[in-house]
Every structure is written in C-alpha cells, then in structure tokens.
C-alpha cells in the first residue's frame, strides 16, 4: 500500500530511497548499488552468521544464558554508542548544511515538524544500520540456539541509535545557537571525530599508566569489586536489554521514544532557524574598505603552497578527518615520550598514520583542484606547480611528526633515524601515487574518494602497508635482531618501491 503524498510515511520512503541511492558506488552514472555490491553485502551477512554461530556455540548453553554476560555486552553497547554519536553528528551536519533538498521541502506545504521528524528518523536509521548488519546475526543465531531473549539486541540497537541521533541533533542545534552556523559546521565534525576515537583513547589508558603504579589493573579491580560496578549495577542495563530482560528493554524503548518526541516537539522550529543560518553562512561581515591588504609572494612555489594550505585550513571536512588521525597519534606520542620497548609498533604506527594523512591531503590538493583551467591557462611551469602541490600535501605530515621524531632521535638515535626514513618514504610515496594516478574530482567527493578511484586507493593502501611493515621490521631488527627480519625488510622495501614504480607507469597523461 503506497503512502499518501505528503504524509510522514511518504516522506520517510523518499528519505530511505535517497539513502539507498547514496549507497551506490556512483560509477558510470549508476544511482543504485550494483549486483556486485549486493552480493558482497550478502556474503558478508552470511559470514557474520557463521562467526556468530562459532562464538555463541563456544559459549555453550550455560554461557549464553549467564547473567554476567550482560557486563561485557554493556561495555560493547557503550563503546558502540560513542561511534553512533559520532556518525549521528556527521549525519546532522550533512542534514543541516550539505543536503540541498531542505529548501524545497520547507517551501512546500508540509509541516516543518513532519520534515524534522522524518529527517531525525532517517538519521537514526542510518546510524543503526551498520550495527544491525554486524550484530543482528548474533540475535538470529541465538534464536535458533534456543535463546529468543537475544532478539532484544535489535530493540537495543534501534533505541540506542535513536537516542544518539537525538543527542547529535540537539548538540548540533545547540552549537548553532552558541557559535553560529559557520563555526558549528567545523566544531560538530571535530566533536564527531573525537567521539569516534574516544573508546580507542580509553582503551590506551592502561598503556599510558603501565610503567609506574599499575593504575590500569587497579581500575579493573575497582570495577569488579565496588558495588557501582558489581554484577547488579545499573550500568549493565544495556547488556540485560540485549539479553531480553523485559524491564531494561521497555526502559530503552521508552527512553528512546521520549527523547525522540521531546526533540521533535521542542526543537523543530530551531531546526528551521538553523537551516536559515546555514543558508547565509557563506557571507561574512564585510570589513571597511580601508582594511584592504595584499600579501603577494615572490615565488610561484610559495604562492601555490600558501593557497593550498589556506584551502585546507578552511575546509571543515578535512579538519575533522585530520583531527581524527591526530587523535590516533596521541597514544603513539605517549610511547615516544616514555621510550619503552614498543618501538616496532611505534615505527609502523607513525609511518601508517603519516602515509594516510598525506594521502588525504594529496587528494584535496591535487585531485580536488577547484580551478584546473586557471592553472593550465597560466604560463606557470607545470613542474613547479606539481612540486608545490606535492610539497603542500606532504609537509603537514612531516612537520607534525618532526618533533616526536627529533625526540626519538635524541633518545634512541638508530630507532629515530629508521622511523624517520620510513615515515619520509611513506609520505613521499602517498603524495606521488595521488599525483600520478589521482583523478580530478570535486572537493565534496572527499568522503567517497576511495570508491571513485579504486586503483589509486589500492596503491595508496598497499604502499602504506609496505612502508608501515618496513618501519616495524627495521625497528625490530635494530632492537631484537631476529634472522628472518632482514629478508622480510628487504621484501617490504622492494614491494614499496614496486608499488611506486607501478603508479609511475600508470600515471595519467594530460589532455
């Protein structure tokens, strides 16, 4: 039965149809996921059922029904909630600032409350979907194994996603009120990145504190013995809801429903206000004409590098992405400062992170050039332009790790120099691969760049792994010196150079 045009169901259908089109690879004008993608998706789903079956079977009938299972499950739910908050913040920024259809919807006779409710439902659905895909098989298998209570997992995921969608929307709208639309776009994405990395940082907590007073184990001890963290604690309600306990389940549904109703009722008007602010955010207040200042630069190289860095610094998407990568760098910095035996991991980690960061920046600087015609019609030497763009993409990562590397070189010179070598090689390779094999694309395609140019993405990935592996092997070789490491390091070096050679051979020629 088709929904009446203009009804909430009809609007929700439109929203879900757009989400379905958005899942397409967008190659060759396709707007729906192809059969290949659907096949991969299905095989993955079946595979997850097999994994769930193996794990639940290993638990045994007693383990699957053990109330203490609620503790680890609760921890997983809490961890997933931070990821959900991260994706809902991203989705809210998208809904508020980037989707071009809200002008059309709000100028129609549809009530703004319905539009807001549907948009919020859409955000909740998009937030829940990956978790339903990954965790749903556990509920299905548990049902087959005689534990129907596990179906509470679906309810818990949907409730949790709804709560996080409401939290994300309220946070975004509050930021609009406090900071204005322009700053909110950046801050919300940065908050999303931090929320996404929160669990990773917490997981590293015991690493930070391991060297002196066993703080990590003490916390674990406290969690198991204090009543706050005891088996009957309220903290484990999410786990009990997953296992099908009726009260926690009803509580989760009521909480999510209440949050949704209150968010829609109290903030739908401010949503419209936020949109109006977002529409006008391109305009900044003009300064008086007397303040006109120019800073012309002496060389073409400087001119291009400064222009690229300005564009990067003013791109909120990129700032969020970069910040996320920097967050993952924080635990590595602690390892550097502590100078313990985690050297190989440090070598690999720094190399991989710098390579990934450079790959992102190179895509922005090289592939997403906004005005290629301007550059081509200028008498500027192409080689200088390419060098300047390469420098603009590689220098931030190198500057970022310069200080930790210097610290490392001072403390353990050989390890520092080896890591500096692999970091430099990885950064240069990432930049060159994008320069040689990257395809022109609009800046707005940043999130989907991997899908648009599969070859470039794969070369970048393999190159990163080769140099990261070499970083691990060289540092391990310098500290432990196992016999197999030397040929392995030689193989990683050769593979890294071969990837670079392949990228050079596949380089795109100018029109």
């Amino acid at each position, binding site marked *: 039965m088709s929904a009446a045009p203009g009804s909430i169901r009809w609007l929700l259908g439109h929203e879900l149809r757009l989400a379905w089109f958005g899942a397409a690879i967008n190659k060759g004008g396709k707007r729906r996921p192809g059969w290949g993608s659907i096949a991969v998706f299905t095989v993955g789903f079946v595979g997850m059922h097999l994994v769930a079956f193996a794990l639940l079977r290993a638990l045994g009938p007693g383990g699957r029904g053990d109330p203490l299972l609620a503790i680890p499950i609760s921890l997983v739910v809490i961890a997933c909630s931070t990821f959900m908050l991260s994706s809902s913040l991203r989705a809210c920024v998208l809904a508020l600032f980037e989707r071009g259809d809200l002008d059309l919807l709000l100028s129609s006779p549809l009530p703004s409350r319905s539009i807001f409710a549907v948009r919020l439902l859409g955000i909740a659905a998009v937030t829940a979907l990956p978790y339903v895909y990954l965790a749903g098989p556990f509920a299905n298998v548990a049902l087959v194994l005689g534990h129907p209570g596990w179906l509470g997992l679906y309810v818990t995921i949907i409730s949790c996603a709804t709560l996080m969608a409401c939290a994300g929307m309220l946070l975004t709208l509050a930021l609009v009120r406090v900071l204005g639309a322009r700053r909110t776009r950046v801050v919300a994405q940065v908050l999303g990145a931090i929320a996404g990395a929160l669990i990773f940082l917490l997981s590293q907590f015991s690493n930070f504190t391991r060297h002196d007073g066993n703080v990590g184990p003490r916390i674990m001890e406290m969690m198991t013995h204090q009543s706050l963290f005891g088996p009957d604690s309220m903290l484990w309600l999410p786990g009990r809801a997953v296992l099908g306990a009726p009260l926690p389940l009803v509580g989760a549904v009521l909480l999510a429903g209440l949050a949704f109703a209150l968010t829609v009722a109290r903030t739908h008007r401010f949503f419209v206000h936020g949109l109006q602010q977002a529409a006008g*955010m*391109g*305009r*900044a207040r*003009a*300064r008086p*004409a007397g*303040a*006109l*200042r*120019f*800073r*012309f*630069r*002496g*060389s*073409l190289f*400087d*001119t*291009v590098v400064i*222009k690229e860095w*300005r*564009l990067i610094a*003013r*791109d909120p998407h990129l700032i969020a992405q970069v910040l996320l990568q920097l967050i993952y760098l924080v635990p590595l910095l602690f390892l550097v400062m502590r100078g313990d035996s985690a050297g190989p991991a440090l070598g690999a980690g720094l190399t991989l992170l710098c390579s990934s960061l450079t790959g992102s920046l190179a895509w922005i600087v090289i592939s997403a050039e*906004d*005005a290629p*015609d*301007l*550059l*081509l*019609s*200028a*008498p*500027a*030497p192409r080689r200088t332009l390419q060098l300047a763009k390469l420098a603009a993409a590689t220098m931030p990562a190198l500057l970022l790790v310069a200080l930790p590397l210097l610290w490392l070189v001072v403390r353990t010179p050989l390890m520092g120099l080896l890591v500096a070598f692999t970091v430099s090689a990885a950064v240069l390779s990432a930049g060159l691969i994008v320069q040689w094999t990257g395809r022109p694309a609009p800046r707005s395609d940043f999130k989907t760049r991997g899908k648009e140019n599969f070859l470039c993405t794969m070369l970048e990935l393999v190159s990163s792994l080769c140099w990261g592996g070499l970083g691990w092997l060289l540092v391990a070789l310098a500290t432990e010196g196992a016999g197999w490491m030397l040929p392995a390091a030689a193989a990683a070096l050769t593979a890294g150079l071969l990837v670079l050679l392949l990228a050079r051979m596949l380089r795109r020629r100018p*029109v």
Partner: protein
Amino acid sequence: MRAESPALRLSGLRKSFGRPAVDGLDLTVRRGELYALLGPNGAGKTTTLRMVTGLLAPDAGDVEVLGIDLARDPAGAKRGMAYLPDDPLLYGKLKPTEYLEFVAGLWGISAQDAEPRARRLLDWLDLTKHAHELTEGFSRGMKQKLALAGALIHEPELLILDEPLTGLDAAAARQVKDLLVSHVEQGGTVILTTHILEVAERLAQRIGIIRAGRLIAEGTLAELRERTQGGSLEDVFLHLTEGQPG
C-alpha cells in the same frame, strides 16, 4: 612577441570527440579589435577557445597567439593572454584579495605591479567592500567580476572570454562591457563568444560565425548584412546558421 603579427591566428584547427567539434578552422583576429565569435549551441566555440588557451590539445592545425606558436612555446603564448571561461571556477575558501594574489603569482607579476592593479580592479568592479568575504558566498555576478579581475591582473594583451555576460544583472553586465571597451581602447584585443547578439552588434568590430566547427561567415556587421541582405544581426545569424547545411 612580434608587433606586426595578429593577436590570434588559427590555421586548419581540428578537434574531434568521436565526431568533429572543430573542423579545419582558419581564423585571424587583428590586434586592437573586439572580435565576437558567434554560433549555435554545439558549433565548436568553446572547444576553439579551449584549444587557443592551451586547455585542450588540437588534433591538427596551428595556434599562434601574439606571434608565438602555442605548441612550441606555450608559456610564452600564455603570458600575454587571459581566458575567462563561461562558468569560472573560483576557490570558494579564498577571499578576493587572496584569489588575486594567487593569480598574480601564476603569471609571475611582482608585488609592486600587482598590488595597485588589484586595488584598481576591485574598486572598478565594485568588489572592494567584499574583499574580506569568502568567494563561496558570492553571487554569480560577483564571481564573474572577480574572475574578470583575475584575468586582467597581468594586463593581458589578448583577452578571451566565453559567454562573459551570462547570468549577470544589468549593472554588472554594463560594468563588464565598459571594461572590455576600455581594454580595446587601450590597445588590447578582446575575443568573446556570446549568445546575446545585441552585445556583439554593439561592441564587436568584427564578427565571426561558426557552425559545425567551421567558419561560415566573417566581417563587420555591415559586411555581414550586405552579404545576407538581412536587417539585424539576429536576422543575419539565423539566416546563416539555419540556411546552410552543416
């Protein structure tokens, strides 16, 4: 750069994208004239301009800009010319001052030369009060004017514009037209394509009409009228482009 050579000379220019887009085009534009290149949609106007400015490599033929062979010395040929595409892509996250700094850097203009020109252009095009705004918030007309300022910052002898007045309001269109006339009065050359025939009729000293990648008529407005016994340029244009086989 030879002073006696024409501003632009195209000989036997060809470009094909499966089917010919430009088909053996011969064209000469003298220095110090405003030349309008007209043609119906898909006639090959933009393809021609993109080959002239080095954005597209021709399949065959020669392009000579201000006496310099574009294929042999692209940098030399580009130094004296500027191109304004029909939909100029600016950097949304740059301010007009920063955009002009960048363009001046591409053409290697010194700060002493560039700064007074940039101030004059922003002032002339009424953009000074918007100089500290990001261009992503600009209207189409403001973007077009800023791109024009960028095109003029190195004081090119040859200015090539593809549909420069599309989407501009009356005031902005007047500013752009005045600027083009002034450029020619100061000895510069302007080649423009336009669908607004009244602009070509009023501004152009010579008009070329292309169809299916070939030049089918060329001359002053009076010469074209005489040739077709038409009234307005619109009559001449329609007579020529609809009356002949492609």
